[in-house]
C-alpha cells in the first residue's frame, strides 16, 4: 500500500493549496466555534466571531472551487503512478474499488493480512472524502440559520422551525463540529499510519520514492 512512491501527480499544487486552506479554515472554525460555544478566556468574542465568519466564507468558496477543479485538473490514477486522468474520475468510486469495501473493512479490523487493491483512494477513503462535501454544506446551512443577517430568510428559517427552534439548530451545528473533529482525527491517522510520506506530498509537495 504505502510502500508506493508518492508523486506530485497524485496531488497537483492546486490541491495542495486547497487542502491547506481547508485545514487552516477548519482549525479556525473549530477554535472560534469552541470559543463561541463557551468563551474559555476573556477578550476574544469579537475576534472569534469575525474569524468564524471569514473562515466560513473562505471554506465554502474553497470547496466549490475544489469541486469545479476536479473536472479540469488531472491527477494520478494510482498512488505511486505518474499516469494521470481527470481528477473527478479518481474521486468517485471506480471499477478498481468494486467489491473492495468489505475487504477494506476486514483489513482494518485485522481480519485479513494483505492490503487491498485500490485506486488512488480506497473505498473507505472515497466515502469519507465525498461525505465531507454534503457535511460542509449542511454545516454551512445550520450556520447561516444561526447567523443574524440570514437567520430569517425563509430558506433558513424554515429549517429552524423544522428542527424545533434555534436552540436545536445550535446543538446540531455544534454536533457537526464534532463530526468534523472525529473525521479529521481518523483521516489524519489513517493517512499517516504507515509513514509520513503522504503528508510530505499533501503539505510540502515533496515527492518520496520507494
Amino acid at each position, binding site marked *: *500500500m504505502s510502500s508506493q512512491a508518492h508523486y506530485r501527480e497524485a496531488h497537483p499544487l492546486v490541491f495542495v493549496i486547497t487542502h491547506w486552506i481547508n485545514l487552516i479554515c477548519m482549525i479556525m472554525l473549530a477554535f472560534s466555534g469552541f470559543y463561541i460555544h463557551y468563551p474559555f478566556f476573556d477578550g476574544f468574542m469579537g475576534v472569534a466571531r469575525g474569524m468564524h465568519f471569514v473562515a466560513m466564507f473562505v471554506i465554502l468558496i474553497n470547496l466549490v472551487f475544489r469541486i469545479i477543479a476536479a473536472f479540469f485538473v488531472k491527477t494520478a490514477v494510482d498512488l505511486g503512478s505518474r499516469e494521470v486522468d481527470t481528477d473527478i474520475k479518481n474521486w468517485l468510486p471506480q471499477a478498481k474499488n468494486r467489491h473492495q469495501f468489505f475487504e477494506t473493512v476486514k483489513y482494518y479490523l485485522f481480519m485479513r493480512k494483505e492490503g487491498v487493491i485500490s485506486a488512488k483512494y480506497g473505498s473507505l477513503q472515497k466515502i469519507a472524502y465525498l461525505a465531507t462535501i454534503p457535511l460542509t454544506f449542511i454545516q454551512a446551512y445550520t450556520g447561516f440559520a444561526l447567523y443574524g443577517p440570514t437567520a430569517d430568510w425563509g430558506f433558513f428559517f424554515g429549517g429552524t422551525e423544522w428542527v*424545533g427552534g434555534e436552540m436545536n439548530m445550535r446543538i446540531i451545528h455544534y454536533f457537526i463540529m464534532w463530526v468534523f473533529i472525529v473525521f479529521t482525527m481518523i483521516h489524519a*491517522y489513517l493517512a499517516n499510519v504507515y509513514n509520513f510520506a503522504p503528508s510530505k506530498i499533501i503539505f510540502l509537495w515533496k515527492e518520496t520514492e520507494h
Partner: protein
Amino acid sequence: MAQEAHGAIYDLLAVRGVSRRDFLKYCSYVAAMLGLSEAAAPQIAAAVEAGARGKLKPALWLNGGSCSGCTESMAQVDSPDVATVVLELLSVNYFETIMAAAGDHAEKAMDDTIEAGGYLLIYEGAVMTGEDGNTLLINGKKGKDILQKAAEKADAILAVGACAVDGGWVYAHPNPAGGIGVQSYLDTVKVATPVVNLPCCPTSPEWIVAMVVQWLLVAEDDPATFLAKTELKTRTYKDSVTGNNVTLNYPAYIVGSTIHDNCPRRGHFENGEFVTEFGSEEEAKGYCLYKMGCKGPQTYTQCPITRWNRSVSWCVNSGAPCIGCGSLNWVDNNAPFFKRLSSMQLGGGVGNVQPGTVGAIVGGVAAAGLLAHGLGMKAAGRIGDGPPMETAKAYDRKKMAKKGGDK
C-alpha cells in the same frame, strides 16, 4: 386635536394623578409597539378617549391552565399608571382572578357577554386537553369547552403569556395534562377567530395595552380587519400533543429582534467580558451573562426595550440571564437555565445530558479507538512499509477458484 380635548379620559387620568403629558408620551410609546410612527400618538389618544367617552368595549379574560402570573403582572400596580386606565376602557365582564362577582353571577355575566358577541377575548394559560379535557374543570365545565364557546363568538383573541401561546411550561416534557396553546387548540376545533399571541412568562402588560389599543383603533370601524391592520410576524411549530403544524401571529414589533441585539450588556459581549460566577467581581461590573446561560441571542422579544414593572428593569438588567421565556417550547428548549445549550432528554436511565458532554465522549472514544488501532497496526507489523499487497481482489480470486482456475 387630541391635546385640546378634555374628554372623560383626562378626568380618569387626573384622578390617578397622571398628567396629560404622561398620557401622550405613553401613547407614542404604544404607537412604537404597534409599529407606527410617533405621529400616530394623537390618533391613539383619540381612540382611547373615544373609548372613555363612548360605550365601553366588552371583553372577557379567561384563565386556562395558568398560574395567574400574567394577571399578577397586569395587576401589580403600586402606582397609578396609564396602562390600568386604558384597560379600564374595556368592560371586562369576566375576570376570574380579580372580579368581584362570584358563582352564578359571574357565570351569567360571561354567558350574557358571549350571547351578545362582539367582544375581545383575552386568554391566559394553557388549554388543558389531557384526559379529554378533564385536567381542567371550572364550575363543572371543561376549560377547553369554555374556550371554544367563548372563542366562537369573539371578535378577536389575545393569547397572553407563553402558556396561551404554545402551552408554555405546562407544555414542557412530559406534559401529562396535554397543555397546548390557544391557536393550536382552536385549529383542532376549527374555530377561525383571529388570535394574536403575546409571548413571555409572564407577558408584558405594556404589550397587552398596545394590543388593546390596536383593538380599539380598528374596532371603531371594522373588527374583522384586526389582523389585516396589525403588523404581524408569524412563526410555525409542530405541536407535539396534537401533531399539527401551528402558525402563530405575533405583533411584529414585539418579536422583531433578539434580546441580544438590544441588550445594554452587548458591548461586554463583543469585548469578551463575561460573568463566570454569580457574586463575582465580573458580575458587579455588569459583564455579559452569556456564560451563565443567557438565551438572549436566540430569543426574539422586545424585553430590553419595553422592560418590566413599569419599565423599571428587566431580567438581564437585574442580573439574571435571559431564560428564553419568549421562545417557543421554551422550557424544553432552554433548560437548564444557567447553561448555554439545553440538555438532551435521552431517557432510558441516562437522563438529561449536555451536548458538550456528548461531544467530549464521542471525541474521547474516537481518540482511544485510534490509539488502540495504532497499537494493533504496530503489532501486525504494518507500520513502516505497510502490509504485503494482494495480487488480485479477493472477489476475483474467489470467482476464479469457482471456475476451477481455468483461464
